[in-house]
């Protein structure tokens, strides 16, 4: 571990209100610190409860560089556990999701664990008599993460045993998840379909920042969305309604004025969203029957309020983004300082017409697939930035657009839609949680000691 681990002042000096040092994107030591501190101290998205509806169901993922699994226990509770056998370290679950039956069984030596992680049995147990196993970590079963919280089926975990609480961390920002769920006439989402998985050779934060960067679409996406608009202008002479595809692409070419008018909201702890007043998702054609279903479920006033929210991108710091009006969720998984796996998931609004899910899937593959022309535009910019940042003599990255000296930090506030305030908000939170105590690797396990099964 390099200088930043041992020198809090050096770390602090990386972030100024209006710019950040390039090391936050390119330095492997900073990346390692992010894994040990930032991804341990914050609440990180793990998965959706609809992926593990039945007892014995599990999913696997990573929180930063830590392999974890989420398990549905017999009593319906969800447990997020390190995906590591306490015996020799073997990963217990190897598939993205599955059902393990009544217990997990390590494939190496058959140590077995209940679906809440507790040790169930060890073969040839007599060999451990008098060895101190019962007092050791190994007898405690699959180690739980520091804390787990499920909000309207969205599973989050904090690796560090001690730290900020779930409600304190997210606060009002949860209204974006709530709005996405409320868009179902039954108030329920189901994660459906495989995620699009897209490898990026850039730092994970570039992707997160781009979610609220509204000064790039009309420039970087002129090639994709701009071409879609120009081809449609020519083709529409043939007649017929505007295709759903053109409705999805065209708003990317909206003017600077439009994006400024969308507005932006920041929340404490690095969360924020674009699209306060309107957004590029506000003007899609109505899906027949859907509004009537919503009125039936919620009453007209509330239905209009739910559907009147057109939040564009909501960033949940550190590394996910959701689109309420489109029902997608993107996870930006850090792999190395210059490598990020982006997984883009789709949700079905339970009880809503199929056409909404069709639109969700179409949007996801247009924008978030490795075959997406919009994705190609973006990745090209990230890659060039990852390479260009190595240029010496200019070590700072500018994030001062619409900055005002004395700008309040860590607050709920509104800004113009083309402001880079959310990027500044993220870096303020970044520094806060990079310095916060609670390094998961050094903390004592504060979870209650559990008796190993005899």
């Amino acid at each position, binding site marked *: 571990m390099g200088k930043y681990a041992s020198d809090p002042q050096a770390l602090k000096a990386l972030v100024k209100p209006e710019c950040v040092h390039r090391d936050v994107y390119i330095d492997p030591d900073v990346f390692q610190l992010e894994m040990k501190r930032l991804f341990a101290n914050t609440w990180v998205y793990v998965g959706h409860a609809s992926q593990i509806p039945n007892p014995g169901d599990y999913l696997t993922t990573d929180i930063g560089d830590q392999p974890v699994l989420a398990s549905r226990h017999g009593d319906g509770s969800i447990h997020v556990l390190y995906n590591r056998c306490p015996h020799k370290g073997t990963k217990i679950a190897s598939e993205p999701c599955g059902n393990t039956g009544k217990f997990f069984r390590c494939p190496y030596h058959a140590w077995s664990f209940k679906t809440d992680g507790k040790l169930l049995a060890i073969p040839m147990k007599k060999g451990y008599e008098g060895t101190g196993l019962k007092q050791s970590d190994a007898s405690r079963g699959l180690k739980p993460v520091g804390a787990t919280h499920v909000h309207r089926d969205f599973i989050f975990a904090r690796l560090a045993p001690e730290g900020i609480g779930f409600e304190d961390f997210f606060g009002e920002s949860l209204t974006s998840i709530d709005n996405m769920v409320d868009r179902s006439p039954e108030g329920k989402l189901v994660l459906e*379909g*495989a*995620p*699009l*998985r*897209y*490898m*990026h*050779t850039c730092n994970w934060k570039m992707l997160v920042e781009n979610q609220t960067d509204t000064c790039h679409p009309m420039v*970087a996406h*002129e*090639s*994709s969305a*701009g*071409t*879609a608009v*120009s*081809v*449609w202008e020519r*083709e529409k002479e043939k007649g017929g309604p505007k*295709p759903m*595809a*053109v409705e999805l*692409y065209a708003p990317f070419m909206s003017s600077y004025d439009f994006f400024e008018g969308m507005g932006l909201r920041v929340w404490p702890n690095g969360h924020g969203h674009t699209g306060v007043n309107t957004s590029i998702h506000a003007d899609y054609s109505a899906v027949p029957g859907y509004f009537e279903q919503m009125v039936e479920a919620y009453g007209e006033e509330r239905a209009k309020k739910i559907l009147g929210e057109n939040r564009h991108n909501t960033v949940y710091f550190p590394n996910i983004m959701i689109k309420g009006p489109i029902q997608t969720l993107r996870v930006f998984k850090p792999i190395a300082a210059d490598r990020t*796996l982006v*997984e883009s998931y*789709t949700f079905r609004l339970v009880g809503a017409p*199929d056409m909404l*899910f*069709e639109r969700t*899937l179409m949007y*996801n*593959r247009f924008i978030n*697939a*490795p*075959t997406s*022309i919009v*994705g*190609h*535009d973006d*990745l*090209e*910019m990230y890659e060039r930035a990852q390479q260009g940042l190595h240029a010496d003599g200019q070590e700072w990255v500018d994030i001062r657009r619409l900055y005002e000296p004395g700008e309040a930090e860590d607050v709920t506030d509104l800004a113009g839609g083309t402001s880079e305030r959310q990027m500044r908000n993220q870096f303020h939170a970044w520094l806060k949680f990079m310095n916060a105590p609670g390094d998961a690797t050094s903390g004592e396990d504060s979870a209650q000691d559990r008796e190993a099964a005899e």
Partner: protein
Amino acid sequence: MIVDSTETTRVTEKDLIDFVTREARLLDELRYDDWLALFAEDGYYWMPLEWQQSDPRLQPSLMYEDRLLLTVRVERLAGARTFSQKPKSRCQHLLQLPQVDEMDAAANVFKTYTPFHYAETRGDEITFYAGWARHTLRLEGGKLKIVLKRVDLVNFDAAFGNIQLFM
């Protein structure tokens, strides 16, 4: 569609095989306008995201694009501000001999199955893919046209970098 079976019965297996190999060659030679012209007006190019996927509409895909969207892609590749094509990508198809799965002259439906290896390159990078291409073809005005080109990758569930061209 009214089928002139005197025409469709003249389609041979060799015609189908020649069509599939020529289609790949057009892509390798970056002749995208000629390639687009191989598609029927209602033709689609489909890359599923799931094993033995049956539905392109309500199941996720890597691509499911009609002629309008394919035209957008082709025009984009040549665009002055298409920065992800500076430098340009190139590709190479290595096809196994296409197998003819269906020759239904009466219905004017012809289907082939072609295992392939595909390389896409840009700058110093080259990436290899493997999969199966399934063509559904139709005779129109004496010419075979693509009704559906379905491309299933063997590792459809893997994380990929940019795939910018057509397999």
